[in-house]
């Protein structure tokens, strides 16, 4: 397996800059997820790594060798496509064996490799079938099998689960994580689904408008989002953002006035912020509990069993969301009082950059 270094990668289509100066160092055996909204450039970046697109500037280095101009085969990568890209006229065996047939590998060795891949992916009894006779999850596994048989240095996955239904997606997520452990492979995985990113990644790259917003382990992104964008992108439901004004700066943090004149002392580094500056206070719905503090009129209540997600408006009309206990005594149309521990709050300056939290939980991976 191998390391993958992206050095100052930029890509333009005419005047449109799709990727801007992206540098990432991906370690051996690491599973890195590129995540971001549609059009952020994550698939383009993956295609550049694969060799399907050429970077306008920058280098791709795999295992110390610059492969920027090399053919995908010579890069030692393999790719699993969103559509699976299975050949409908070929059997599962032939689909998996396709790259080996291209290489004109000896028949015995080819059969051995296909059999091994099929066993890992539990496809042994499906080998004679055509892709059209398989379920979505099985097709996905065939596509992965085609990648495995080549023994690539780096596996690339382009939104491989987005065509599956929710239940199957959950199962496949677990299978892919298991596969990553079994193969001890370097993998780059593109998704727009932050749940996939959080659950599978060793490290996540959050992309926005062609730039890296943050690159780090999932829980670092959750507890220490570098920007307002990352804070809102990571976490489900989205983080609440309240407009606030800094009333004072002290060693214990910032005194910030938020909605309805409530002043909270938030334990964050001042980072050059002064009294009178406008800031945004971020509060994750799951950090909120019932208790005196903010008053919200509940418009929508979603009972999920273990949790109740409430959506409503605060006194100043700001939209707000809180995740409460499953059995919380809340009803739609009623007002409830909510409280939050100031240590759980995130504060972003006018540029959208975070002010580092002083009492964030220890990072876990």
């Amino acid at each position: 397996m191998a390391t993958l270094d992206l050095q100052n990668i930029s890509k333009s289509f005419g005047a449109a800059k799709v990727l801007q100066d992206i540098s990432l160092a991906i370690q051996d055996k690491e599973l890195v997820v590129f995540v971001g909204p549609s059009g952020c450039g994550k698939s383009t970046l993956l295609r550049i790594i694969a060799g399907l697109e050429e970077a306008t500037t920058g280098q791709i280095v795999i295992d110390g060798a610059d492969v920027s101009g090399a053919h995908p085969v010579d890069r030692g990568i393999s790719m699993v496509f969103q559509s699976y890209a299975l050949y409908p006229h070929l059997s599962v065996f032939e689909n998996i064996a396709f790259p080996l047939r291209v290489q004109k590998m000896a028949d015995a060795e080819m059969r051995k490799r296909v059999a091994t891949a099929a066993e890992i992916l539990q496809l042994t009894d499906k080998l004679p079938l055509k892709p059209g006779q398989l379920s979505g999850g099985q097709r996905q596994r065939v596509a992965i099998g085609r990648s495995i048989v080549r023994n690539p240095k780096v596996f690339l996955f382009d939104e491989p689960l987005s065509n599956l239904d929710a239940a199957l997606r959950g199962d496949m997520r677990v299978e892919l994580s298991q596969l990553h452990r079994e193969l001890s492979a370097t993998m780059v995985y593109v998704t727009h689904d932050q749940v996939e990113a959080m659950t599978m990644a060793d490290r996540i790259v959050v992309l926005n408008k062609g730039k890296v917003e943050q690159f780090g382990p999932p829980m670092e992104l959750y507890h220490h989002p570098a920007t307002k964008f990352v804070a809102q992108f990571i976490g489900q439901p989205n983080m609440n953002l309240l407009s606030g004004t800094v009333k004072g700066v002290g060693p214990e943090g910032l005194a910030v006035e938020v909605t309805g004149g409530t002043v909270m002392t938030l334990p964050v580094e001042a980072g050059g912020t002064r009294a009178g500056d406008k800031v945004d206070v971020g509060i994750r719905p799951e950090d909120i509990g019932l208790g005196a503090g903010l008053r919200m009129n509940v418009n929508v209540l979603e009972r999920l069993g273990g949790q109740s997600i409430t959506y409503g408006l605060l006194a100043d009309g700001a939209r707000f969301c809180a995740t409460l206990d499953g059995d919380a005594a809340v009803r739609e149309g009623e007002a409830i009082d909510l409280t939050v521990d100031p240590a759980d709050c995130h504060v972003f300056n006018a540029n959208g950059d975070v002010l580092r939290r002083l009492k964030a939980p220890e990072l876990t991976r």
Partner: protein
Amino acid sequence: MADMTVEAGAAAPTTMPRRLSEGWFAWALIAPAMLFIGVIVAWPLAETLRLSFTDANLGGEHWVGWANYQALWDSSPFAQTIGRTFYWMVLSVCLKLILGLIGATLLNAAVPGRGLFRVLVMPPWVIPIAIGCIGWLWLYNGHFGMLAGLAQRWGLIGGPFEFLAYKQSAFYSAIVTDVWVGTPMVSLFFLAAMQGVSRDLYEAAWVDGAGRWYRFRRITIPQIMPVIVSMALLSAIWTFNSFEVIWILTQGGPRGATTTLIVDTYKTAIGNYKFGEGAARAVVIVVLLASFSLIYLFFLNKVNRKYGVK
């Protein structure tokens, strides 16, 4: 039990007329189409079949039973015509398919000016066949034609050469013109099929190291195979029945060298006013084309199963 009987009895008067009227409505909807098909297909077909058992001509008609068919069976020129028709069809269709495939591949390639080429390939198909054929008549002309002129200039022939005056050259010249007329449509059908092949399949194969020829052989051809089979049949039927090209270029000559079944039928029925004998030839054509269609359906199902088309 008594209640159920009453209910059934009560329901009957309300549902029966509705069902009846729905049935009549459905028949009323398809009646115009059935009438149309009856007038332009079924009746002429039945009439042709009837005529084929008569000696119908301008002077009248008498029932002759299988005599017309017996005469065809015993006629060696007719056997030659059938053989020539099949040779004409197989050669022309093969050329159309091969050239169509090459053309479609070139038109599908990412080359500058691709759009212009796509337009330029259309004229043979778009302009009326008669006009195209008259153009070819000039090209084949021994004294004024471009082909003979170029061949003389390059020293390939010593003097004027009438392409349509000799048996073999007339036959192959007619094939060239028929291929010229028929290839663009085949090409465009293949091009449409090629554009329907998922780009991901090619990218996946490319990432796996498959070269251009390998991708063409193992992805493009299998993916468009159902269209190739369909076009082979349609093209075979059209070529089998191709009349204008031969009639305008050679009228079946010289000495019958380009007389195919359809030309022979026309000459017999319309040229020589032997409607009965012509009808028998037409029936033979129908039987042969129906056989093609059955073979085609058999192959199409097989191909669709093999290439994963539902």
